[in-house]
């Protein structure tokens, strides 16, 4: 691994993640003003919305690295695809956890089949499908290519999913008022909090992916050594 990449991974990335997350927490809890209608619970939204962005973006990354893998056969690309899928799944799960926790006090229900929640559930299922394939695919190397195809096909599905779900449910006014962030963003400080949280979570995503990818690399090395040992 090159020196600059090592510096990036071991020093810059973790520290900037730490600092930005700290800043985000401070802003979310202390600096941002309380929203008039929703009160203190609204602060969940700063993370919830950004987690959702990362969740969906994460799958785009899975697709991108999968394409890279299929074109070049680069094992690093494959490890990144796998890592992105895992972290993306983690973030999607958090969206589905923080969402209902926010919804319950605001709308009175834990769950509705509104467009955004529905598409997030399906996204979760697509992540699950990809990770299941990798887990059940056995030790074979060809599974990597299959997973890459799945990753790409899945990402093609997501825009269609968003279209279908929107058409299906229409855009529900009650949802709009409390779900749409722009409606309640009276104070510019709220916008800044959202932005800082966004940056923090993006860095967090990247850092977690780098950690996971590195673990995968070590895993491969150990597996290769076992294989050599078995042969000799």
């Amino acid at each position, binding site marked *: 691994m090159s020196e600059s990449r090592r510096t990036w991974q071991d020093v810059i990335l973790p520290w900037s993640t730490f600092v930005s997350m700290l800043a985000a927490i401070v802003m979310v809890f202390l600096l941002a003003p309380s929203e008039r209608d929703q009160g203190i619970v609204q602060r969940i939204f700063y993370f919830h919305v950004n987690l959702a962005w990362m969740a969906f973006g994460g799958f785009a990354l899975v697709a991108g690295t999968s394409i890279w893998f*299929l074109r070049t056969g680069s094992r690093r690309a494959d490890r990144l695809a796998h890592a992105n899928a895992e972290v993306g799944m983690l973030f999607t799960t958090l969206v589905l956890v923080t969402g209902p926790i926010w919804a319950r006090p605001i709308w009175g229900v834990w769950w509705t089949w509104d467009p955004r929640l529905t598409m997030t559930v*399906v996204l979760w*299922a*697509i992540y*699950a*499908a990809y990770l*299941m*394939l990798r887990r*059940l*695919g*056995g030790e*074979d190397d*060809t*599974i990597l*290519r*299959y997973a*890459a*195809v*799945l990753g*790409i*096909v*899945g990402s*093609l*599905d997501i825009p*269609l*999913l968003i*279209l*279908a*779900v929107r*058409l*299906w449910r229409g855009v529900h006014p009650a949802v709009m008022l409390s779900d749409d962030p722009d409606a309640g963003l009276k104070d510019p400080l709220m916008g800044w909090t959202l932005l800082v949280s966004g940056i923090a979570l993006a860095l967090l995503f990247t850092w977690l992916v780098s950690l996971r990818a590195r673990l995968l690399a070590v895993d491969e090395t150990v597996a290769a050594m076992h294989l050599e040992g078995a042969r000799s």
Partner: protein
Amino acid sequence: MWTIVRKDLAIELRTGEMASSMFLLALLIIIVFAFTLEPERLMAPEFLAGLSWTTLLVAGTLALNRSFVLEREAGGLTGLALVPIDRGSIYLGKAIGNFLLLLVAGFVLLPLIAILLGTRGLSPTWLLPGVIVLGVAGIAVIGTLCAAIASRTRAREVLLPILMFPLLAPLLIAATRTTAGALVGESASDLQSWLLMLGGFDIVFATAGWLSFDFLLDE
């Protein structure tokens, strides 16, 4: 490509085992629905559409599971891959075979469920067969691709639905909505966006499957 279609159909016509198992499974699912959900409540056309597609999907998974298993066990896929034909054609051949099987199933199931549920308020339009064709094509296209992917693993029967169902979410939404509309007489212009989406879905994934099969068959 057409050789593959003909071969698969010949197997099916000779044994008929797939069609009968699918039919039986579909029937059993409908009966389960009848027991677990109050049949009197299910008389609206929306339920007919929803239950038909659900049943078709589950029964269809049975057929799709078998798409590549027979080949794999007999070593046939290696033989296929060696033949100098376009890998994509293998995919299309398999997909068309599945499509036809599912299409027949769909045309049988929909009236059957309508009778069993005693659906009210039906005024079907000529759009209905077209919708079934588009929807079934989507299931066949994605299902064949996922069957190929899953067949490589040991847990292939479990994995196929896990892969297929999430990917089919947009299709299921569109197909059910459009079927319900076609059952009560909505016109093509009312359902325009949905129909476009169905068509788009089919084209996108048929192309994706066709292109990606090159990556899937190197053994």
